[in-house]
């Protein structure tokens, strides 16, 4: 199954003279799966921990956007009290799918690698200037713009992607039957609100965040907010300090501005931050 949108969509885009909505992707089966080229957006998500007030508006906005069933979270906030009274501090750490680039060798993130239904159909991503980038679909697959997406039609409900994700960003969706095995559930995970960004609207959690701690945008666009923040804080360059579990070598595209060293402190506290534990928002 593929979506057939390519030509007309591109024409519409060009006709309107707007690069506006390129996030909405063109999907056509051709060629072999390849990694994103420069022309595709390079989506990144940045959480500015200085601005996170631990309010959980992101968690709830995400629940509502996708009607996420109880027991599963696509977005969550972790909190931890560290230090010794009266020099104690309380840290917050929003969590979501890191939309990993995958390691340098194969550029395939672990969830995609483990998916038995990947690679499947041949697809094509058409950039704003009309370039076609070929890639492969699957139950879990990586799009040339970096989004790690899930296609339930192809899913067998095996749960290997859940096991493979070191960040616990995937969960069974107990209200969704997997497309290929009616005895199993499909999964739920953050997709950076692909349906919203396709229409030029920020992801739901970015929209609601009262602290304006969440940023989504294109690192290939030097004028984007994420590019500016990347430049200011050296997020990509210092990815060992700005991403979660760098030792896993998954190369996340979700970065943290972390002035308090929250990432390492919370990892050290290990209370709710063990590898593979499904992300969970419980105070």
């Amino acid at each position: 199954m593929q979506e057939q949108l390519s030509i007309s969509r591109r024409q519409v885009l060009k006709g309107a003279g707007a690069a506006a909505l390129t996030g909405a992707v063109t999907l056509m089966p051709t060629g072999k799966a390849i990694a994103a080229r420069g022309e595709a957006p390079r989506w990144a998500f940045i959480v500015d921990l200085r601005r996170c007030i631990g309010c959980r508006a992101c968690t709830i906005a995400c629940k509502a956007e996708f009607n996420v069933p109880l027991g599963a979270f696509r977005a969550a906030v972790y909190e931890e009290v560290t230090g010794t009274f009266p020099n104690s501090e309380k840290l917050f750490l929003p969590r979501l799918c890191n939309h990993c680039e995958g390691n340098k060798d194969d550029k395939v993130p672990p969830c995609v690698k483990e998916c038995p239904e990947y690679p499947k159909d041949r697809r094509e991503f058409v950039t704003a200037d009309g370039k076609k980038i070929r890639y492969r679909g699957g139950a879990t697959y990586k799009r040339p713009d970096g989004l790690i997406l899930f296609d339930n039609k192809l899913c067998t409900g095996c749960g290997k992607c859940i096991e493979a994700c070191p960040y616990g960003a995937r969960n069974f969706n107990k209200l969704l039957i997997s497309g290929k095995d009616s005895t199993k559930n499909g999964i739920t995970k953050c997709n950076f609100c692909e349906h919203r960004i396709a229409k030029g609207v920020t992801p739901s959690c970015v929209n609601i965040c009262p602290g304006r701690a969440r940023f989504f945008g294109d690192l290939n666009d030097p004028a984007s907010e994420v590019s500016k923040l990347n430049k200011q804080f050296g997020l990509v360059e210092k990815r060992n300090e700005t991403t979660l579990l760098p030792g896993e070598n998954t190369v996340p595209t979700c970065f943290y501005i972390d002035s308090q060293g929250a990432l390492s402190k919370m990892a050290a506290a290990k209370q709710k931050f063990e590898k593979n534990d499904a992300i969970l928002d419980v105070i």
Partner: protein
Amino acid sequence: MKQEINRRDLFKLGIASAAVLATGKAIGSSALAGTVDFVEGGKDFSPETGAERQMIPSACWSCVTRDSMIGFVEDGRLVKLEGQPNSIRGKGKICAKGAAGINQLYDPDRILYPMKRVGKRGEGKWKRISWDAALTDLAARLKKLRDEGHPEKFMFHYGRMKASSSKIIKSAFLGAYGTKTIGNHTSICEGAKWTGQELTWGKHYDNWDFDNTKMVVNFGSNCLEAHTNSIPVSQRLISGIVDRGVKLYTFDVRLSNTAAKSTEWVPVKPGTDRAVVLAMCKVIMDAGLYDKDFFKFIKATKNRKESTDAKIAALKKHLDTFTPEWAEKISGVPAAKIKSIALELAKTKPACVISYRGAVAHHHGADTERAIQMLAAITGNIDNPGGRCRGVGAKWKYPKGPKDKPKAKALKITNGFKGDIAYPTHGANHQVLKMIKDGKAGRPEIYMWYCYTPVYSHGETQENIDILKDESLIPFTVNVNAYYDESAALADLILPNPSYLEWWDWEDMVSPTQIPEYYIRQPFVKPLGESRDFKDVVCELAQRMGFSLGFNSAEEFVKMSCEMTPDVKAAGGFEYMKKHGVWHDPNAKPKYYMYKKEVKTEDLKKDGVIFDEATGVYWNWKKAHAESEAAAKEKGYTKTKNAYKGYVGQEIEGKVYAGFKPDKVNKSGYFELYSELMEMKNLPAIPSFTPVPVHEKMGPDDLILTSYKVSVHIHSRSANCKWLTEICHDNPGLINSKTAKRLGIKTGDKIKVTSEIGEITTTAKVTEGVVPGVISISHHLGHWQYGRYASGKKSPFAGDNDPDFKLKTWNTYGVHPNWIIANKPDPISGQWAMLDTVVKVTKA
């Protein structure tokens, strides 16, 4: 695929419309990068089909902030709530509680039909009845009391009822009916703060101008998690901290989220903030760092004509013993810390001193608020850009109900026991049930409560249950409610209200920018089941009793108000508001320094205006309904009942200023640090330190029990929201590690917490995030009703159609602390001194 065709079609439309979204942010950037300059909101789409969801503007009602918001409807169902991008208050943001409002609407345990008790009160046996049967019965009972000349025996007790809801139900309906036995909930919230403000600067409500401030000193506010103007101020505060380097010092018992984001959390022992504030005032006065100019408007001595130097000298003298070292002994805050923050505050201009329940829900809490007002005043941070400002909200015009309202009567049961409370300006309603039991001030025959839960919200839970259950004390109980909570379980009649997402209102909450914002609430969907907005119901009840309110529904009232309010009418009236939800005057200037405005000479010459030499107040004895001019002059402004209602202006050094207009008490137009009203009641004229009496008698192993709010729950009324309760469904007692060690308690231990009135068993959580000597337990939880998500218990006639039921991950529901908190009031304001409770904590 059908779906794809839809998406493509939408996409064509998408380009044109996306460019002119509500935020007005232009789209378009480097085409080569193939990127998008995203709009922040205003639109939403189905993740399944990509189809655009229908947007409707409305307003939140989860807490009193009442953010304007937008919601998205898909196939007739509300699916998503977001902030209103065009609101100057919320700037497109809402909180977790607001976004989870959908759970309030679709709570499967909602009450959808009128219900009548069968069996004993509180037994849990109910019969579904028709609205006609319910209103026939209720109207007959109400009419009988009214016809007998005792409308006051109908008591109406509300929790949240603001703006048009208040005007329709309280002013129009209850006013026309003739009862003034009306209770509110302010004493369980921040009554002491309001009384403290009324005694100093007149009207209540302080807006914190975070957009323009450079420093914030916070006593007991957790405004990043919960506040009366939460989203408007929290986003501005965090932005100030990160973008402008605003320093924030938070004095709190607990490491709240607000404390967590502060430059420094300064732990303070419960009930001792005032000692710190007084010491800070002393440091500033002694260092000569006060704002001398503002002293012109300050009353600091009995003699109002005292020179500024004499006022300063008097204040210094008063503060003389309140040294930082003295305050350290009381509060646990190091003297050096008090000094350094005080000096930084005095030198940083402008700065904002803020406060909330942590500081004021104590014995003499109103005096703490007065002291905090003093700290803001002497540093020149009153009503100034970046300071502590008087609240500015929308001024709607609206239909007032029938003209020939009777003179309303009241049972004197809403202000606490006689002689207990000096100035209960916002009531002492947590004591209502106690007073009904006492009976000396009379008892209502019909007790109706609305968006309130007297059983759960007050202290002394068991007594509340016992009294409300007792038919000999209260013959008939009616609850207007959408949810079967602990109090609804004790009603004789339940009228099913919709959720706020199904009703009409106009709204007027304070704006953080000092520019008023007008906004409305409109339904996203029709009321579910047979639920009916109580505002519509009172229109019918009035008619059944033979009078008319002059409008037939809340929608009509809102429509009329939009047409009656000149600015809103000019903007396009009701149709504009339905389409846009929110309006403000783009040319309006923020309101600061309102006290400096001079009163026009002709206003002083108006009929009935007289001058009171003692206070320097010009007031209109006729507007104050004094007996006669002679009587008004003889008694004087301060001692004439309700003289403040006639306030015109304040004479200061030969000029007459608008001053700090009084409200609820006969304060002068000065900023009163010296209060004759306090002195008259043998209370400290100038803010002073009075220890919490029960804390003076504490044994070495006693702890103080405090409670608090979390970011994902609303007061008493959100445990039914599955998405919120999924995040927070337990509330262990927080104990500092040092205290826990001394008591031999570890995290997870079952503990008994015992106060003078009872005992609860809960779980301990040992933490570095609370001061030693305290156990802190959040409220919100520990429900034994309120449906399956809140308590595991199904409500009468509830449905089973929520697929999430079988996925519920929790079976703990927390423990309510109010069982063991006595309903003691602050003797100044009537505020429930809920944070003073002394307890013993032992392993269970």
